[in-house]
């Protein structure tokens, strides 16, 4: 006996096996990201008044990445539709766009990560706090491009009304002046912890999805010649996953960038 319904849908459910499988998998993914979003909510409502950051992320960059992912969802649908219409050449084109969009997204995301990892908060021995991006550092001195703040609270709400944009300039410190120096990695604040965890996990999903789509676009395309219907199903299933990954970002963007 062979396993039935690998390609053709089962009459009473209207689904082929893999389509049901991916929907179930996505249900578990909803629970996975749901737990992380719940964590975000709990950490945020549990934060001390005035200590939850606003405006730490660059909204135009985030918007750009959102548009990139939404476009990739469209090209994914078009690629699947091309398969349905037996136009392999168009499929090749549209999924090439999807893969390019995925690569763009990951590059932009790495740029944003890099920006956070080179961003330092420096507590000086005299009680002052300096904050800015690292220009260069050596064994006995550190140079950042940034500004001084009197109260650490000023660093949290960058969107507060009336907060004048402080002038940024190059600041030089001797190592001996510095009490503590920490970059804006996940260890710096629970907001950054959940930001890096959520977007990191999401980025892994983007990369995983792009690898699968890339495989189907390249070597996996051989299946088109022998069993086009099955190949189209694979495009559909990987597309469903891709839409989910996009949808997660649609929630991530407002939650992390805008709120």
């Amino acid at each position, binding site marked *: *006996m*062979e*396993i*039935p*319904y690998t390609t053709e849908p*089962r009459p009473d*459910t209207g*689904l082929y*096996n*893999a389509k*049901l*499988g991916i929907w*179930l*998998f996505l*249900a*578990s*993914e909803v*629970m*996975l*990201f*749901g*737990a*992380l979003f*719940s*964590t975000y909510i*709990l*950490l945020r409502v*549990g*934060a*001390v008044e005035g*200590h939850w950051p606003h405006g730490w992320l660059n909204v135009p960059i985030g918007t750009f990445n959102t548009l990139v992912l939404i476009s990739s969802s469209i090209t994914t649908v078009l690629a699947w539709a091309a398969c349905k219409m037996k136009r392999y050449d168009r499929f090749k084109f549209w999924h090439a766009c999807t893969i390019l969009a995925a690569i763009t997204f990951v590059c932009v995301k790495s740029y944003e990560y890099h920006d956070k990892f080179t961003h330092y908060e420096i507590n000086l021995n005299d009680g002052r706090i300096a904050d800015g991006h690292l220009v260069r550092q050596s064994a006995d001195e550190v140079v950042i491009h940034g500004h001084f703040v009197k109260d650490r609270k000023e660093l949290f709400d960058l969107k507060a009304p009336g907060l004048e944009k402080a002038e940024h300039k190059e600041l030089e410190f001797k190592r001996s002046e510095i009490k503590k120096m920490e970059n804006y*990695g*996940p*260890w*710096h*604040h*629970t907001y950054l*912890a*959940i930001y890096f*965890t959520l977007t990191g*996990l999401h980025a892994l999903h983007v990369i995983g999805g792009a690898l699968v789509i890339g495989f189907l676009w390249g070597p996996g395309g051989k299946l088109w010649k022998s069993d086009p219907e099955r190949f189209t199903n694979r495009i559909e299933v990987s597309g469903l996953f891709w839409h989910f990954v996009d949808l997660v970002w649609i929630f991530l963007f407002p939650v992390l960038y805008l709120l």
Partner: protein
Amino acid sequence: MQTAHPTTTHPGGHDHAAPHAHESHSGGFWSTYVFSTDHKMIGMQYGLTALSFLLFGFMLMVLMRWQIAHPGQPVPVIGPFLANLLGPGAARGSISNDLYNSFGAMHGTIMVFLAIVPLAFGAFGNYLVPLQIGAPDMAFPRVNMASYQFFLLGGVVMFVSFFLPGGAAQAGWTSYPPLSVTIPTDGQSYWLIGMVLLISSSLLGAVNFIATVIQLRAPGMTWMRLPFFVWAQFVTAFLLLLAFPPLEAAGIMQLMDKVVHTSFFLPTGLAVEGQMAAVSGGGSPLLWQHLFWFLAHPEVYVLILPAMGIVAEIIANNTRKPVWGYKSLVGATLSIGVLSFIVWAHHMYMTGMGSKISTFFQTTTMLISIPSVIILTCLLISLWGGSIRFNTPMLFVMAFLPMFGIGGLTGLPLGLNYADLHLHDTYYVIAHFHYVVAPGTIFAMFAGLYYWYPKYTGRFMSEFWGKVHFWGSFIFMNCIFLPMFAQGMAGMLRRMADGGANYSQARVPDAVGGLSPQMLNLHTYILWAAFCLGAVQIPFLINFFWSIKHGRPAGSDNPWSATTLEWQTPTPPPHGNFATAPHVYRGPYEYSVPGHATDCTPQNQPD
């Protein structure tokens, strides 16, 4: 392919039972036994791995019982060996407090995630679900293989953590932060990585089970003709699918706390060993508990539902009558599935989450006991008026019913907010959930092993040694766990490396509520019972392996005269399972139908 009456339908009518284990496999050793995609081989892999972990987890427990009964004294016989193997934690062959803690944490983890769940779900589910629904295999055979390999890798990671410099995880199987994050051992990181692998394995398995049951049911196998075992596995798969991911998220976050030094679960102002911890703070320890128990309570039903499925099959077969209240069983199982997602915080009454929330969870907890009682009642009533065959599987099943009853009923005081204040974290809790899982689920697993053994091998296990195994296990299980109710009610806390000696009347005569010598003396008695329980597993182990080649031949494909489809295949079932595609004409338990020539009518026998 609607050959209505395959030659294998008649119970006992087809002699295909001579054990010829290799006919079903083509291909080399690696593709047959290691990288197999056949659900039966994967089921066997799960089963053997899980049984090994079951034995390992049991041995950890015996060592802990020694330490509890004789705190600080070197372990007899194997003490020097332990000292060599585990280094300073077992110096002079005695178990240090840290080592005791890691044994405790790992006993729980191994028994739940590496022994019972893989045995109940991975082994029995994999082997039987496709057979019982008349499918050639799981829906996704390669995903199935990956599921086992993730599981094995997770098990290896857990096992290796014992030999790290700081030892294995020590913060209990619940791994509550900040304690778990601040204990200076990498064992906790290994525990978390192991858990992430095990959860991934369960997810792959769960997707596969659900897709298989929905998509691959044979023609005529309608939902209400599914054997109850399949229903139980189906609901179990949903629990795993939806309850496990939050723990995966929590595991990832605790791993971040441990390795990257984030503060998901570390509050502001946390001090470790008198020093302010160098963390950003702002995290919530309670969050971990919520995410953990959101999995770990449904997990309880993951442990028990497959066992109930096995029990229903064996009861129907050995009473020679249909299970009573099939629809109620199915309905109750589905209700348990839904309700199990909203009871988790009854594990957290002592955290100060507030009396309103406690009351909510107390209410849902009382509610979920209703479907549990419905299931147990249906199974009990099924015995009524039956002409019961008291073979080994049936004995284990008969013991399951009262043992699970004790386990379930003693859970009610724990589900009630006020009673729990006294009983929380005592040996009463230990006794309660071990009654559910040990003489409950494990007995059902043993029953299943004895019952389906002729299907895997074509031979029976020895009835005599099976009965020795049963009576020994039954008596000593109760000797171990019954006294713990008394100890717990007397106020003995769990997780104490000295078994409560520190809180004894002997040490502090004036203290109110100090533990009496009688309560402490029970430890010695439990230790001996545990030792004897281990001893009576020896006949089982020998029986299990010896019978593969030397057991009494089953004599037919359907030696128990059963109705469900797994008995209507060749023995052992070949790759693809069925000689001809089965067609299902009737419900799963048509035993002793009035007017029929035989007392069982297989599901694929046409009218």
